[in-house]
């Protein structure tokens, strides 16, 4: 029998090892798998590479891993936010390696990893510092740069519902990087609000098919970034 549902957040992240490359879903607070991230902070794996759009705020989510000195390298499009003091400080002190990637290139590099694409050419970033050192090639009279896939050992993703096979349904703009990250990681770990019976999800509405998901954990009342940040401010 196929059952990808694990009992606890602790079990969900138990094998995330030192030096792992971890894709982290979410865009700002939407879709951020805060409960999984805090479980990983608790577990204490070190020298991680985090691939995510943002770098967390306050001491919440990715920022908690950064503050704990668990991250050696971060790949993201927009690390700076209101209250992103942890990454600000680490970067200024030269204690973290940052690779800045245009947001669409980041999404496509992740998708390419999941889709078995060895690399792709994009017009994005041509003529900018982010294209320096990359192979250029002209297609149809327009210059493009070569971008390579970003594989991961693990993906941490938040969705709304899953069944025991790992089919996923998302809610609103929570989806963002989740589907391509589930495809790209060797082990995709997903926190959902509800685990439903097999057959209960309408197959027409499944967004991430079960084959891309390895582990599901139910978190009926997920942590709220807004509430955690408000509490930090008190």
């Amino acid at each position: 029998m196929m059952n990808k549902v694990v009992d606890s957040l602790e079990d969900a992240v138990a094998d995330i090892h030192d030096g792992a490359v971890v894709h982290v879903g979410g865009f700002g607070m939407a879709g951020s798998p805060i409960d999984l991230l805090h479980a990983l902070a608790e577990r204490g794996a070190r020298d991680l590479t985090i691939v995510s759009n943002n770098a967390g705020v306050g001491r919440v989510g990715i920022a908690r891993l950064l503050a704990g000195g668990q991250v050696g390298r971060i790949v993201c499009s927009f690390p700076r936010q209101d209250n992103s003091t942890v990454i600000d400080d680490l970067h200024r002190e030269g204690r973290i390696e940052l690779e800045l990637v245009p947001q669409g290139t980041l999404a496509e590099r992740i998708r390419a990893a999941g889709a078995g694409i060895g690399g792709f050419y994009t017009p994005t970033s041509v003529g900018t510092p982010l294209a320096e050192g990359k192979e250029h090639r002209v297609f149809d009279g327009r210059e493009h740069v070569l971008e390579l896939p970003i594989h991961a050992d693990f993906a941490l993703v938040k969705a709304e519902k899953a069944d025991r096979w790992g089919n996923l349904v998302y809610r609103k703009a929570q989806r963002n990087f989740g589907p391509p990250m589930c495809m790209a990681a060797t082990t995709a770990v997903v926190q959902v609000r509800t685990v439903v019976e097999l057959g209960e999800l309408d197959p027409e509405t499944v967004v991430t098919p079960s084959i891309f998901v390895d582990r599901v954990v139910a978190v009926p009342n997920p942590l709220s970034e807004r509430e955690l940040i408000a509490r930090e401010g008190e």
Partner: protein
Amino acid sequence: MTGRLGRDRIAWRVGRDIPDGSFVNLGIGMPELVANHLPEGREIVFQSENGILGMGPRPEPGEEDEELVNAGKKLVTLLPGGSFFHHADSFAMIRGGHIDICVLGAFQVSRTGDLANWTTGMDALPGVGGAMDLVAGSKRVFVMTTHTTRNGDPKIVEECVLPLTGKGCVSTVYSDLAVVDFGPDGPVVREKLEDLDFDELQDRTGTPLRLANDWKPLEVPILD
């Protein structure tokens, strides 16, 4: 010279140039104001690069949902007809030429339409977001900005000295003084404040401008 436009009045002017039926991406900051100043009777669909088409205004108190934010990470709503999609599809829309217009801010625009708007080069921690994808793929790129920096330096320049976001990508600059189109002949002033001499506008610009033969006064109502 009087009547330099404020942010809302620039947004109003940008809104006049967005046709009915357009799919539009608004950048973070000043461009977000455009959504408040659209002409009556036009149906315009806003795309947010984090996976939303048909983005609506900020939610009423009590209606906030942490899973529904815009590109600036602010809480928003979804309008009837709206849809959600993942990031790779979102940037297929953007890079693939499906967005009619994006509206962005600028540090500098060169006479050939190069845009610099993501880093001053001095930032402790730079962030690029989706700007490079938006300027690479949108059918038209509108820039909304003050004509000069706080120090009075021109933002429309011969060549950008700041790191570029994209080359030759800007269609039109909407400033607090003028509307300037960018094409093969360099920057052409389509509209300027009526009581602003062309020479004075030229003085505030770092590269030669041409005044269109059919130029019009830049007329924007006083807004609340």
